[in-house]
């Protein structure tokens, strides 16, 4: 990943000031990241019904519309915020598709046992996903952001260091390591 010329925080400030170029740059930066993330969170049939990228774009636009209300302009906090919006969008999409299926528009071949099960929950089990989400909420903001970036978004440690305002990649590595232990403890 090329080093951003401007930090996310700077871009967010510029978006808050109404600069369209900053908005485009933020979208360019986060779209691939969030698309990849959303891919695993959507049920297989839901991914057929709506382009994941569209869903992500919708979420991004929604988030940027509310940027004035977004006080913590740190990159880590912004990504956590985007993730929450995107999760809500995914849930809405699933409900919409489920309702439509109940009204007879379903394709018999795409019927699944649990219509709301994502690829992720089918692979690892809904129980694990729920315990992970619950445990994530027990962490401090910084620890939660570090874990999310590493586990869900595949950030490298220099990237995590920059996003979490940690002095170095080694410090970020330790932050992730400690946070993962706390997370694992909380998942029991």
């Amino acid at each position, binding site marked *: 990943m090329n080093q951003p010329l401007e930090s996310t925080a700077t871009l967010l400030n510029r978006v808050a000031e109404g600069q369209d170029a900053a908005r485009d740059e933020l979208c360019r930066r986060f779209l691939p990241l969030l698309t990849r993330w959303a891919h695993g969170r959507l049920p297989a049939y839901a991914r057929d019904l709506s382009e994941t990228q569209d869903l992500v774009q919708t979420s991004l636009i929604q988030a940027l519309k509310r940027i004035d209300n977004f006080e913590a302009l740190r990159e880590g906090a912004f990504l956590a915020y985007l993730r929450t919006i995107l999760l809500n969008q995914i849930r809405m999409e699933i409900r919409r598709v489920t309702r439509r299926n109940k009204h007879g528009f379903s394709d018999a071949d795409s019927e699944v046992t649990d219509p709301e099960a994502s690829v992720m929950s089918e*692979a690892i089990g809904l129980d694990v996903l729920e315990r*992970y989400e619950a445990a994530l909420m027990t962490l401090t903001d910084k620890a939660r952001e570090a874990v999310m970036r590493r586990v869900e978004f595949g950030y490298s440690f220099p990237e995590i260091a920059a996003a979490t305002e940690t002095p170095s990649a080694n410090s970020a590595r330790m932050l992730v390591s400690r946070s993962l232990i706390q997370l694992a403890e909380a998942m029991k």
Partner: protein
Amino acid sequence: MSRRKGPPDLRAKSILERLSGSSDALDELGEDSQDLAERLKEIEQLFVLHGGERPMADDEVERPTLFSWGHLQVLEPIGSGSFGEVFLAHDGILDRDVALKLLKTGEQRPFQSQLFLHEARQLAMVRHPNVLAVHGAAIHDARPGLWCDLIEGKTLSDSEAELASFQQADWLNLIESLVLGLQAVHDAGLLHGDVKPSNIMRDRNGQWVLMDFGASLDRQPDPGGLAMTTGTPLYMAPEGVMGQSPSTAADFYSLGATLYRMMSDQPVYAVKDWTELASLQERSTPIDWTVIEGSVSGPVSKLVRAMLAFEPAARPDAIEILAEIESTRTAPQRRFRSIAVAAVTGSLLLGLVFTGWGLVQANQARTEAEQEQRNTAAVNAFLQRLLSAPDDSGQVRDMTVEAMLDFAAGEVRKELDGQPEAQAAVHLALAESYEALSLSDETLEQARLGLAELEKIEPINTTLRPALELEIIAALESRGSTS
């Protein structure tokens, strides 16, 4: 959150290594649980399902670069200090990550660049496993800097948990490594100038490495204007505090102060400022040794004491310290050898005593055996003469056993004159024979005669006497039962 103490679960460590590149946090927390490993495994599965670490099309190109400095791609800051900044950088020529130390520049430092370069280049000539390897030094974009090995590990100041369980051998290894490192630096004509816990690192292979030659490369004018003061005050030798030029002995004082700090968790002098430190040093204030004597062995404590001597000349040099370490290491072997020699000598002495006693006993037994043999021979000879003696007509005598015994009894004194023990033995034999013939009076008489002969000798024969006494008792009983 539950905390279970014990060695961390290897599986948990392995998963954490894969997820975060480090399991040090697990060591620090002392977590040990199969459950923890299971949860970490679930997190790892989530990591993989999310796509894992995002792939880079070309890792070398894609790594974020802050700026270039000469042939180095500067990747991220990893530390800073009064001297300047340290960065993680990639050396494209060596194709490896290195640490880049860039000196601060300013109007007050125009002369420093050349001094810095000169010493950095000398340091680059030092190649020792216990010294951070400096690869080169240069000035680029008006910033002097040097690049060196990137050490991943823990500094001594971050190793308190490990130090708590240090045994004498561990302390000796640590001291030896650092002294060897200092010796290599000194041999290159340089001083370290800033030995302290945060400048000593243990790499992933467990090797202690002296690093950060900040003080020697970043000398600043003393406010007094007369001397160059370098290093960290709490670990600085008295002569340095008082403004004198540093020497190799000052590095060993700093090493002593570093060890003192790590052994006691307190500095040699707990002071707040230079003035207080200088005042204590000038007065040669005694150091509190009690705080380290409880935590380390006598020989290690003695080494630290020697290094912290007030007078530089009184401090040991590298060779002396290394010799002392070797001596301490081999002391148990020497003690073992001494004990072994003592044990062998003792065994020999005991052996000699027992052998001597055995010889005495053997001699005594031999004497007794010889005496017994002589007695037997005398008795046999007596009986032979007795049986072969012709009667008055010159014919061999045809006589009853009783008559023969009576005859023998009459001949004992004459035949064995001067041999009381032999006479006693013959009297015993006669008593036993009479007893076999149920002649109790004769038995009693022979037994009494035998005891009488034994009374003449000293010491009393312990074999014949009880046998004769038994014959007397038997004869008396026999006589009592027949009367």
